[in-house]
């Protein structure tokens, strides 16, 4: 019998601007020991569906219009607050997306772990701190926290992202729930850590026989662990089937679109000439930051974000720079653009040494090199219209007079595929993909020769990601750009780059032309990275998890 059965669920948001049908007539069921994946792009209603089960939605504006959600025969949607608290305490647990923000920074992780046990709403079921602690430590061992005895009294900031997500999983499991809801639990993590966490969830599910609802935007991630997949779009179910049928025999256009949007293989760029002469020449670049922890010994005085890196980028080349978080890849990019002062070493742009120039001397060079940032929500000034944002670089560098500016800006809007009618709008009125188009428009406004793109698609949905990547490739071709493409996502880098550099802990681990590196990685770190990429292929994914 299904442990959870959702029937005809409708959740609407009543806002001043009208009603948003976030979830519109959804039905599904999960059995014990089964993993159901809900896949969809942002705004598809996948998270709203799950939050409505636990009464975690803000009401108003949210309102459950219709439907039932039977958990072991009890309707979750109509039960009283006390019953809901019982369910949350005993039966259903959630793992949230961002382990950085879902743990309280002022409490030790141990304190947070035992909280639901010691402060159980039902006084009879509450247990003593001592036995709760024993239970918590056993669980920390199970989720792979080393030295769990000592780590019990550590604060969240003393853990890495992956370790925090393990703690979150332990927290979810401590009440021995029958249903575990994972809301994008690996999205904020590096690819190697993601592989570990996925394995852990799979393993725990098997040993404990819990039902799992796994929410993700990434079909590749769910391929290996899901038994059934639901594809959601705009509040409705587009397709629901067992995993293999979704991946191998889908009939739905939207699912096909999602699958084809996953970047696979390499794109060959026609009509480009890569000259041998380097446009960018970096030699022995070091960028250190003062260590904030305040230890005075000479060893740890500095964080070596970039440690003795040399590289060259030829004209017309797209260089992919890959690394996990903390590898120094973004700092390297910012040091090349002279946005972060280098400690030593030199950066040459077109045979001119940039390091050591002051802000004024750099102005003419800034025009020739630009940057596209990761988060299109943060990289645009919220109080400037698109027109102002795009005209600022043109006016500042004297590339257009006040009279011609409207024409220039419209041309830019065309180049990046935005409707001219949207000139007067503010950033918040655009979707993520459109914002990234604005940011790209700003970067190409000065007709630069060199652009650094720092994770330009990692905040975007997969279909949008594909569009933006194609836009970038188009622009590279049209404007003869040289580009450094920074990303943690190997598939994306493979799709777009001519040559790849792998970075770890501030140094270059391996470099080579893209296909050669994929076919014959030399360094163990590179091999690890490549093997951790989730593929949208359930059979090979299962095989990989099984053989680990």
């Amino acid at each position, binding site marked *: 019998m299904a442990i959870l059965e959702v029937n005809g669920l409708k959740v609407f948001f009543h806002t001043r601007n009208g009603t948003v049908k976030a979830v519109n007539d959804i039905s599904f069921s999960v059995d014990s020991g089964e993993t159901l994946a809900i896949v969809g792009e942002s705004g598809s209603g996948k998270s709203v569906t799950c939050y409505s089960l636990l009464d975690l939605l803000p009401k108003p504006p949210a309102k459950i219009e219709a439907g039932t959600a039977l958990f072991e025969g009890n309707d979750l949607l109509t039960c009283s607050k006390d019953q809901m608290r019982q369910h949350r305490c005993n039966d259903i647990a959630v793992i949230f997306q961002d382990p950085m923000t879902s743990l309280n920074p002022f409490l030790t992780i141990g304190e947070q772990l035992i909280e639901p046990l010691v402060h159980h709403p039902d006084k009879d079921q509450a247990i003593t701190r001592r036995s709760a602690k024993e239970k918590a430590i056993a669980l920390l061992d199970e989720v792979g926290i080393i030295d769990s005895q000592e780590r019990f009294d550590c604060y969240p900031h003393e853990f890495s992202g992956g370790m925090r997500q393990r703690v979150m999983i332990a927290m979810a499991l401590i009440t021995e729930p029958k249903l575990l809801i994972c809301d994008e639990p690996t999205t904020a993590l590096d690819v190697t850590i993601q592989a570990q966490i996925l394995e852990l969830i799979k393993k725990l599910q098997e040993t404990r026989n819990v039902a799992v609802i796994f929410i993700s935007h990434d079909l590749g991630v769910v391929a290996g662990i899901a038994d059934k997949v639901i594809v959601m779009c705009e509040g409705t179910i587009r397709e629901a089937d067992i995993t293999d049928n979704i991946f191998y025999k889908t009939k739905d256009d939207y699912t096909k679109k999602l699958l084809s949007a996953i970047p696979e293989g390499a794109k060959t760029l026609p009509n480009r000439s890569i000259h041998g002469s380097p446009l960018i020449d970096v030699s022995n670049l070091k960028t250190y930051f003062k260590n904030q922890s305040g230890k005075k010994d000479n060893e740890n005085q500095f964080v070596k974000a970039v440690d003795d890196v040399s590289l060259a980028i030829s004209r017309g080349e797209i260089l992919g720079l890959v690394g996990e978080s903390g590898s120094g890849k973004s700092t390297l990019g910012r040091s090349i*653009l002279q946005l972060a002062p280098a400690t030593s070493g030199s950066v040459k742009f077109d045979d001119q040494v940039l390091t050591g120039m002051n802000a004024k001397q750099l102005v003419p060079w800034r025009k020739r090199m630009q940057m596209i940032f990761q988060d299109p929500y943060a990289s645009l000034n919220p109080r*400037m219209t698109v027109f102002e944002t795009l005209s600022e670089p043109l006016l500042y560098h004297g590339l257009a007079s006040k009279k011609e500016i409207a024409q220039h800006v419209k041309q830019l809007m065309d180049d990046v595929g935005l409707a001219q009618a949207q000139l007067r709008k503010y950033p918040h009125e655009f979707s993520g993909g459109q914002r990234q188009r604005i940011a790209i428009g700003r970067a190409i406004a000065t007709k630069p020769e060199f652009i650094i793109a720092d994770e330009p698609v990692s905040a975007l949905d997969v279909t949008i990601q594909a569009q933006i990547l194609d836009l970038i490739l188009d622009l590279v071709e049209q404007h003869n750009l040289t580009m450094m493409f920074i990303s943690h996502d190997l598939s994306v880098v493979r799709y777009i780059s001519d040559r790849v550099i792998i970075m770890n802990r501030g140094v270059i681990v391996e470099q080579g032309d893209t296909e050669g590196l994929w076919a014959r990685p030399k360094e163990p770190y590179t091999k690890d990275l490549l093997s951790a990429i989730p593929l949208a292929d359930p059979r090979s994914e299962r095989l990989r998890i099984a053989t680990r």
Partner: protein
Amino acid sequence: MNSSIEENSSSLWKDAWIKLSKNRLALFGLAILCILIITSLLTPLIAPYSYEAQNLELGATSPSIQHWLGTDIFGRDMLTRIMYGGRVSLMVGFIATAVALVIGILWGAVAGFFGGRVDAVMMRIVDMLYALPFMIFIILLMVVFGRNILLLFFAIGAVEWLTMARIVRSQVMALRNQEFVEAANSLGLSQWTIIRRHIIPNTLGPVIVYTTLTIPSVMLLEAFLSFLGLGIQPPQSSWGLLINYGVETMEEFPWLLIFPGIALSLTLFALNFLGDGLRDALDPRASKD
């Protein structure tokens, strides 16, 4: 160039005005403020009586047809005195707050944006001024420069900017590391341009709210100083002073307290409505309706 001219001129301030003009409560506040300001400007022409002519035989009378708002214990017309008092109060409120705004925003923005040593030095200066007893500061100014209403305004403004600088600085420090500021940097914009175009407009929300709180507190501060004999002197008056005297005779002649009180609260209401409206209008993200 047909529609593009409109597009060109579109900016935060213009859009804010369009949005504000749709906000009835804010417009109401603005209208009241305008009426008060215009009345103050025209007071010497339209005031029914002289503000200093006493009529001791008449004494304090309650509102009547001759004296709409009654007379005070010296037989002076209250309406006239409130009108003249409004001149002083509104002036001190706006000038002192404007002084505080300009110094505070610039000081805070520069300190917060550059950080490090610049910030340390600038904020220590603020701390030192905070520690300086306000009264002694004003008395010193009065002794050195002589008693002068304008100087009083600046002195009050020069004290109030400290808090403004603190608020702006903390806002700027959070903004400084935002990606759009870094993007502006990578465009090669000068530091001053970045502060002016990217930083300050994004600090406006809290600044406006604090401004609407500062204006009334400055008005009351002036009353306090005048009460101590450091501000304006009788027979001149201000709303704060009128209220102070009104409190003393509250039980016998309540209208001496009530009417200046209404004038002051009306201003505060208007300011708050306008302030809230401005804050929403200057934030493009606030819903449009």
